[in-house]
């Protein structure tokens, strides 16, 4: 089985502070040489703190940003060299659901128009076909068909997120990018949406790129997990393996910082000192070394590469 998405040495650098006078003053390495694959019907989870590049990664996969370096292959074809027909095929195959259900729906469009937009933009369809498809999609995400005639402000956050999911599914995509899809929702609603996403995946064979800062949600949803720190992948592998026994010191600290789901799970924590440095000026060598409890002299000089350690990939000199 070939991978649906394959990213190779993907980088995205942004020029920092462009003034009218004087050119770019350094670059922000938002994403710096990362590689990952997404298998058909599976979920790849991406975790990391702010500034780690997870949202930029999502934008690269969605084609909202063009990579500075490296390539993304979708169904075997390099995104940078698609012709018009292939590009349209790609547009239809990759859709997205974003964090804020209040900002993701155009406030002045009816729900039917919102859901149908990807469809009517990319395909020639009759009004009747559109209407049927919208009703079908609403049913799929558990909303009554009369929702089609209403405006977004008449719905609650969880319902809006269902509308956003219906819209993403309008063109029967293969991959849906989920960028923090539940973090803006109330606790009691999150489980509804996570369950819905899981059901849809089982039923439609969707692949997900799931991005979240809530580790438990990522571990719950993903087959594979990628942990990012300052634009680089520090650890990746099977979700269960990673969650139960993280190897990279950063992954360990991150999972230890995650809040327990039960008071009995209170444990000895490895609380990291310091804060995430600016991606404008990342530390040399291993980017994590200034905060790492196990840092060695070579960590400040040599950048570690991903290497297999106990069934997953880790970028750390400890295991070299």
């Amino acid at each position, binding site marked *: 089985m070939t991978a649906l998405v394959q990213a190779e040495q993907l980088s995205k650098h942004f020029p920092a502070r462009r003034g009218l006078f004087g050119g770019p003053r350094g670059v922000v390495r938002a994403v710096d040489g990362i590689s990952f694959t997404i298998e058909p019907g599976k979920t790849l989870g991406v975790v990391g703190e702010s500034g780690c590049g997870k949202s930029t990664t999502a934008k690269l996969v969605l084609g909202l940003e063009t990579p500075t370096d490296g390539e993304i292959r979708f169904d075997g074809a390099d995104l940078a060299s698609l012709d018009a027909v292939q590009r349209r095929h790609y547009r239809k195959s990759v859709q997205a659901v974003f964090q804020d259900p209040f900002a993701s729906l155009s406030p002045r469009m009816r729900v039917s128009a919102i859901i149908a937009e990807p469809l009517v933009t990319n395909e020639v369809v009759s009004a009747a076909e559109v209407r049927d498809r919208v009703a079908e999609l609403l049913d799929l995400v558990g909303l009554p068909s009369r929702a089609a005639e209403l405006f977004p402000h008449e719905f609650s956050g969880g319902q809006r997120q269902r509308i956003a999911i219906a819209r993403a599914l309008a063109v029967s995509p293969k991959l849906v990018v989920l960028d923090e899809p539940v973090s803006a929702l109330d*606790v009691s609603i999150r489980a509804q949406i996570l369950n819905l996403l899981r059901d849809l995946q089982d039923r439609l064979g969707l692949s997900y790129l799931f991005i979240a800062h809530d580790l438990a949600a990522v571990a719950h949803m993903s087959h594979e997990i990628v942990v990012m720190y300052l634009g680089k992948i520090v650890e990746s592998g099977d979700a269960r393996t990673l969650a139960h026994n993280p190897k990279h010191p950063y992954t360990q600290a991150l999972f230890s910082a995650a809040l327990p789901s039960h008071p009995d799970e209170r444990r000895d924590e490895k*609380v990291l000192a310091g804060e*995430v440095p600016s991606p404008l000026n990342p530390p040399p060598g291993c980017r994590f070394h200034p905060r790492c409890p196990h840092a060695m002299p070579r960590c400040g000089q040599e950048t570690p590469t991903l290497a297999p350690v106990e069934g997953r990939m880790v970028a750390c000199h400890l295991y070299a």
Partner: protein
Amino acid sequence: MSAAPLLSLQNLSTHYVSQHGSRVVRAVDDVTLDLHAGESLGIVGESGSGKTTLALAILRLLPPAARIVSGRMLFEGEDLLAKPDGDMRRVRGKRIAMVLQDPMASLNPLFSIGDQVGEPIRVHEGAGRASAWQRAIGLLKSVRIASPETRVRQYPHEMSGGMRQRIVGAIGISCGPRLLIADEPTTSLDLTIQAQYLELLRDLQRQRGLALIFITHNLGIVAKMCDRLAVMYAGRVVEQGPVAQLFNAPAHPYTRALLGSLPRMSDNRERLTAIEGQPPDLSSLPPGCAFAPRCPMAAPRCATQAPPAFVLGEDHSARCWLAAPVAAA
């Protein structure tokens, strides 16, 4: 429990009244809670459950549209509601402090850190500028800010988010309060920074014998930090008790559902127990139990009669007909 509680809320109700008086929102409805010195209490609820209004009501800093309509608030034996405004002001920041959720916006951009940290000391203890400044340096040190001597002279925009949140913490403890209320203190912080901050709060609590109230929607924070938990739904405390007891044997269906809906690190890819429906509209609540329309175990009487708080054990109570003693049911 032997000693008198530090803070005791008795049947406290706070309502928002719309401009024309036609809509009344019962943001906090008949809340009874006790908090002992040195204890930490988690108040958990979704948006609109009234948890923030409750915190502001304790400090009597409600927005103009809100009114405390009934109940009593005893703090160290004094009735806070009976105090004149000037006396109440001397309670705020001195005996009860509060930390807000947004560290980026909580500090005034035009004044130095030292000025803002030392301000409560000058106001409440009449300290001079120089001595307040010295105390501010000490406070920054106690919230683990490196080189506090230079930091006091700096301005908020020169600090990272985590540092600002700790400075807000330093302001909170500056006059040695007995009670610190933290309203979603870590929502805008990254995981590792959140862990640092929670650890700091716990250390401060131990060192200074602070009582803590955590207002949060995150049960994880409660599991990690709190001794006792109060669960709010639609303005009412539906269940309260020791944290371990509530997590192990929740009595109210809402508490049970809330716990079941949390994804856990260990239960890879199990289906979650979702709570059906949407949170209620506070201005048109059903006459009975507010949770009844979403409750999987609702009985006919739930829709018409609001359940009182039934005592389930020492310090554990729930507002649910299922918890009623057999005789009452």
